[in-house]
């Protein structure tokens, strides 16, 4: 018996080691511009990092198929941690990264954007939405904490924009009389959106009856918050949070037979892919996102088809943002005649010039005619989406 288990354990160990070696077969193209991406490929935010990697890979395949300028992507894991992100960034620098896709999530991106700014590597982040990533943005009192990092640009909306846009959308469409908010006060993304939402709601005269918070440590039980909201009689609940706690809120609200309208932001995207989540509960949930997988234009259709064929799931907004990042970088590189032999700082200088050029417009999955300002923010319009029969439908 003992012998059997010994042999079995040896076999298991060998199998694991072999599995490791097989996984690192990487497709490398010589003579390609090296693009480095950092994101959470493991841990609780892994769905975002993986989506970005997948989306970017599809775009790179398309771009490389054109036969002109070639791109090569390497993605490193940061476990959604600033310290690990800087380690990953240094690793990518050793690899010879020429353009950075920044990082996927906000906190790590603040750390990495400072590094790219010092090292003069151009960065276009698909989804790190805080203004601290870009720097140079004053808060409500006009305090500027971080100077502008001139070579960092965003593909997604900034947190303040999302908060403001959500409030305006709710007001314009008259979605709710009494509004409640649940946000994560231990999360930079969630707090950032909430603060701007509150400020804009006050300005517009929206009636916010109840504001509740939770933290990462208490993200399992929302009955207390939901009870309070129910008692306050809210008919619309604004959830500027990620989809995992949101899925719990939806199912717990259902258990207490409380059925208000729910309104989310881009972090809500992904709720239909949560394991063991009854997607019928998400019926009627609204969210503000620049991308929908069921849009009827050719570009989205072909992207979704490719994504489904390759990865077996419907792409979310993060994948679309990453796709657009690569498309934008490709166009910018072609416009500026960037070559593979150029150094990262040379490329950086040219790309800054191109991205701040008002004539530089990109038609992508997440918007048409996207332009960038010198502040690093993208200009595109958000779309309101509602979940019907398990898919997003434009509102």
């Amino acid at each position, binding site marked *: 018996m003992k012998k059997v288990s010994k042999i079995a354990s040896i076999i298991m160990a060998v199998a694991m080691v072999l599995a490791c070696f097989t996984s690192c077969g990487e497709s490398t193209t010589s003579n390609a511009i090296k693009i480095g991406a950092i994101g959470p490929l493991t841990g609780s935010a892994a769905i975002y990092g993986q989506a970005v990697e997948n989306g970017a890979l599809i775009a790179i395949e398309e771009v490389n198929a054109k036969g002109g300028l070639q791109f090569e992507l390497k993605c490193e*894991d940061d476990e959604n941690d600033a310290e690990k992100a800087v380690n990953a960034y240094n690793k990518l620098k*050793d690899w010879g990264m020429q353009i950075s896709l920044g990082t996927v999530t906000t906190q790590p991106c*603040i750390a990495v954007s400072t590094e790219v700014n010092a090292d003069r590597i151009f960065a276009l982040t698909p989804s790190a939405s805080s203004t601290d990533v870009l720097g140079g943005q004053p808060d409500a*009192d006009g*305090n500027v904490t971080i100077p502008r990092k001139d070579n960092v640009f965003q593909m997604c909306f900034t947190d303040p924009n999302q908060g403001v846009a959500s409030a305006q959308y709710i007001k314009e469409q008259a979605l709710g009389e009494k509004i409640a908010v649940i946000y994560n006060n231990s999360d930079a993304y969630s707090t950032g959106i909430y603060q701007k939402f509150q400020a804009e709601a006050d300005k517009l005269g929206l009636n916010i009856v109840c504001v509740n918070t939770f933290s990462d440590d208490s993200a399992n039980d929302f009955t207390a918050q939901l009870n309070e909201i129910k008692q306050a009689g809210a008919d619309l609940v604004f959830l500027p949070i990620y989809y995992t706690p949101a899925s719990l809120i939806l199912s717990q609200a259902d258990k207490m037979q409380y059925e208000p309208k729910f309104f989310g932001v881009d972090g809500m995207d992904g709720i239909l892919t949560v394991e063991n989540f009854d997607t019928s509960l998400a019926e009627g949930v609204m969210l503000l996102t620049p991308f929908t997988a069921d849009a009827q234009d050719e570009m989205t259709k072909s992207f979704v088809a490719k994504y489904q064929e390759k990865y077996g799931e419907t792409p979310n907004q993060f994948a679309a943002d990453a796709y657009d990042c690569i498309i934008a970088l490709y166009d910018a590189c072609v416009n500026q005649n960037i070559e593979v032999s150029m150094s990262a700082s040379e490329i950086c200088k040219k790309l800054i010039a191109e991205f701040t050029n008002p004539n530089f417009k990109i038609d992508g999955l997440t918007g048409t005619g996207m332009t960038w300002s010198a502040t690093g923010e993208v200009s595109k319009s958000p779309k309101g989406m509602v979940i019907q029969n398990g898919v997003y439908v434009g509102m």
Partner: protein
Amino acid sequence: MEKIKNLNKFTRTNIRAYGLIILAFIVLFPLQSTGIISNSISGQLVPICTYIVMAISLNLTVGFLGELSLGHAGFMSVGAFTGVITAICLQEVIPSAALRLLIAIIAGGIAAGVAGFLIGIPVLRLRGDYLAIVTLAFGEIIKNIINCLYVGVDSNGLHMSMTNAEALGMINGKLIINGPQGAVGITKIASFTAGILLILFALFIILNLVNSKSGRAVTAIRDNRIAAESVGISVTRYKLTAFIISAVLAGMAGALYAMNFSTIAAKKFDFNTSILILVFVVLGGMGNIVGSIVATALLYILPELLREYADYRMLIYAIVLILVMLLTNSEKAKQMRERFVYKWKKRLRKNNDQQEGLKNG
């Protein structure tokens, strides 16, 4: 070699510990400044230094005092945020980065020491598992307090609030700590040299403490509290001393850590970080300072070296951890190791004898 063997145990540990750190510095510093080693390694030097200080300071509580503390990252957090506030406030007053870093580290140490004192009073009345649970709770409390702390500075001085950034009422000021978003506008002033100096300082404090009268009192309390009390050792006093020193060093490490990144958030210093440091200590051996240093450096670099294996990285890391724990601690492994050493020595002796035999012959 013979000379080192003849020295007493204390001096031997000292030489090994200081020697290891100084050697590491002599080898790595020129390599780093000339850029011969990769960016990856060179970027990890400062975090490794801070974690080494964390590990040896926790070793004082866990190894020498014999109390399991699960909230060590809390003190690191206090030190980190105090250090950040100090450094940002002094940015204009003190232009020298090195001096500013030094003051920030000292401020971080003092703040963490005060926190250690306040927490130590209730906590050290408990023992064993109870103490471990309570330190865990205090670590979480510190994290949650900093999570809703807003600090800013403008021409009128420092502003503090627990509600939101708007409540600070600053005019053209600079937000230092922005609640859960943490501190974002940190100027990177930490350096490898500062890290090494901090380790040497921590080693100096801990090694001297352990070998002083107080240190012997501390280990006596660990080995038998009742016996220690009966010979007149004030248990509370020595326990508190060791706990506070451990907290001060953790606070200093925290300040250095914060100065190495442009952003830090309270979320980083959670239960997981405390456990990570405990793993370094346990793996290096409780009460073994040199072991802590080596274990920290190896375990920090390992996940980075394993980046090639992408998805399987953390799996391999876990397997390596289990294997190392088994190899260093299981009875059977110990016996095997001893047998190997015995055989090796025997062969060496044989060779020596043969050589001497040849010479004589």
